[in-house]
């Protein structure tokens, strides 16, 4: 009897059968070693997160998103899809926005990572955070940290010179509550303020 498909195999198996091939049947590999990395496989990582230097020993397979959420307790970046499709995990690396679920933590060795927790200046919210609140640019709030960081980077990129450009520039961050008009209004509010 072939091993039973796991979750990720369902789609692959379905496609194989649909195109009349049985090639993938029976190919699922049986793990012989534990999935968690053995202590000897751990690697050192050093980076700067929200202005603080951090040195850790991690499983090399750890994504930047999991590093932030699981290893550093910075849960502001959200796991909406883990496939780079929703933007809820957006963080800044050396000021540039990336989907942290698509980066391995090791890729940001030595670099500066800014998460939503590092955006406020002391007690005072970052102007983009304040603009999101003032414009009611969210409902459930799950995509909001990613939207705010994406908006901060968009303004720094200097290309948000029209409403169309704001929409284009924010199109990698999905908001299912449909707060787009207010998200764009929040970005517009800060545009040109430097």
């Amino acid at each position, binding site marked *: 009897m072939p*091993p039973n498909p796991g979750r990720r195999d369902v789609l692959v198996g*379905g496609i194989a059968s*649909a195109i009349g091939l049985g090639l993938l049947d029976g190919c699922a590999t049986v793990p012989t070693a534990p999935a968690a990395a053995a202590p000897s496989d751990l690697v050192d990582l050093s980076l700067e997160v929200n202005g603080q230097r951090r040195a850790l020993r991690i499983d090399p397979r750890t994504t930047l998103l999991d590093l932030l959420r699981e290893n550093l307790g910075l849960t502001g*970046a959200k796991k909406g899809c883990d496939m780079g*499709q929703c933007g809820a995990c957006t963080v800044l690396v050396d000021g540039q926005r990336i989907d942290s679920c698509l980066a391995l933590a090791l890729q940001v060795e030595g670099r500066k990572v800014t998460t939503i927790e590092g955006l406020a200046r002391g007690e005072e919210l970052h102007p983009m955070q304040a603009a999101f*609140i003032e414009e*009611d640019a969210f409902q459930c709030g799950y995509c909001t940290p990613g939207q705010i960081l994406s908006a901060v980077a968009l303004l720094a990129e200097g290309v948000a010179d029209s409403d169309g450009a704001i929409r284009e520039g924010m199109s990698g961050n999905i908001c299912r509550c449909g707060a*787009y008009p207010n998200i764009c209004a929040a970005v517009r509010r800060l545009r040109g303020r430097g």
Partner: protein
Amino acid sequence: MSVGKRFPKVDGASKADGSGIYADDISLPRMLHAKILRSPHANARIRRIDPSPALQVPGVVATLIGAEMPEKYGVIPWTHDEQALATDHVRFVGDEVACVAALDERTAEEALKLIEVEYEVLPAILTPEDALAHPEIKVNERAKVGNITKQVQLEFGPVDEALASAATIARQTYFYAGSTHTPIEPHCAVARVDADGNLTVWSSTQIPHYLQRELSRVLGLPQAKVRVIQPLLGGAFGGKSDPFSLEFCVAKLALKTGRPVKILFTREEVFYAHRGRHPMKMDVTVALDREGRISAVDNKILIDGGAYASFGLVTAYYAGQLLTGPYRFGTYRFDSKRMYTNKPPCGPKRGHGSVQPRFAFEVALDEAAEKLGIDPIEVRRRNFIGEFVETVNGQKITSNGFLKCLELVEEASGWRTRHGKLGPGRGLGVAGSMYITGTAYPVYPNEMPQSGVLVKLDRSGRVAIFSGASDIGQGVNTLLCQIAAEELGCDPRDVTIVAADTDLTPVDLGAYSSRVTFMVGLAAREACLKLAEKLRVAGGANFTEACQRAEAIEGAPLAAAGGYRTQKLGGDYRGGTIGASPAYSFTAHVAEVEVDEETGIWKVSKIWAAHDCGKALNPTLVEGQIEGSVYMGAAEAQMEEMVYDQRGLLFGPSLLDYRIPTSLDTPDLESFIVESNDPGGPYGAKEAGEGPLHPAIPAIANALHDACGIRIRELPFYPQRILKLLRERRDKERAA
């Protein structure tokens, strides 16, 4: 005064600075991570299942199979037909089969592959037509007849007589594709058992109370030992209003291992959890008399339900019961059938059950009016049902601002000078709708209040509100602060909300059927008014002093409770209470579209949406609900569809393949609030979260007709479908 004012969300800062806690942000000492094995077959018997090899993997702590909690459950007590993990029968690709808890997620996922399951694959039923044709192939054993979850046949007045004497009749078949909620937060649940055996489940749920009941039943624990807490919720839209497998699995595994357990669904699994919009095929007949009055409506509805009932019993009713406003129907008949099929179960997506027939009806009404040469807005105005009237099916309408809604969108869109005159490829379309403000009755019959709110005043001047209501982004916690400020005279920022915790807060039935503002609002107001009277008698220079004086007079802590009590409503016939609501909201949209007739590519240029919410307790929140609804409706018209292959496998369960609009695809929209001041609602309020979705789809379809003379009757309105209709139109023109 605070009610009726624009006021930022009270949880805004915690959402903007990342400090808000959602279910997946909860991490407990010694917590295990679990993963669920899912069926690769659409319909199969489980011949044998052996999870023991998974236990050999280092790091795996426990496994779980269906036989360990075989009790069936479901959100509706009459249709318990689901198991957390299948014991003997899997009913769709993605149905849950077994579960593994391990020290980390990756280990659990790898160990799933070792679980041995032997299936006997059965033929799969993938369409409702096949479900009817093959009653011998049982998708779900709960169905008494063939594969029918529920059939409803109701007739109000002599429909056939009215059809025989009609001036004109529009009769066509429409198809509404299935779509899904896609909240950005995947379902997540964490369970913990304390030293005394009390179970706590934190879950991304819209229905903490119903979940508590089902957990108790399935796990065989007294309800008093089960506590459900809903943390911040990252979007729901109806997609988190059933009990789900992961909640039972984490609870059972926590009981089994004595350790906390978490499951976070992957994005792919969210698609299998589904409970989205039911695909519906509708044969609709609309008859008008010589004056353009609706003399008869007849609708035959075939509903594709998926593998389990979910809210399907209600869906079968709503598909017919909620169509009978804002227009007066002379006579009405519907026959709706919800079928089980071997696909992920459908359920209540925003505008549950009534979005699909609304699309078909509003397009048919346009078509019938066109035959009589009546303007689309005029025919809707002429058929207005009125205020404080009874519908043809016995539902009591109270306040009704529909005419004002029509007037606003007519004016704002420049309808009179622009409809029919925008030139080739551009057009305007209109549609109206009605929706419930809460379903009149709880899902399980009982005499207790549907909503409770406790308010406590501290001598510091701090107000604490204990409310069972689920804030799912719609902002009920903010409304509660505003109501407290309004009645007690405190600063709304000095209110603490303790919400949606079945141990600490009074019961609220959940964030579904647009019931929260109305029912929780009334309960909160009642509690606050009791305390306001004590503060008035006590007097004092300011709020804090008044609290202290009142507490001294009382000789006990200052607290009061309020409730929302079920009203007796609905028609006097079997099923007449389903669709009954203490108040109905009304909406009108005008949509403007642009079509490239060479390619069929089209876009919505703008939607004007006017919504009668009774009274906007916070206009900013109401506008957000209108805009979010219009966005979601337009999305269904434009691009969203759940597509399966011939084996029942969902194509591309991801956010790239299941396309949802980004900021680039979302139409410009302008929203208008209409306040009809409902006599039954808190401060006159009615619902705003679901009604405004309905007219978007038919308004767009009607605009496409104005733009290029085609009638599209199948969702989504893909460019290739538009192109096909354009070619048919040209062929017809050439032949003429």
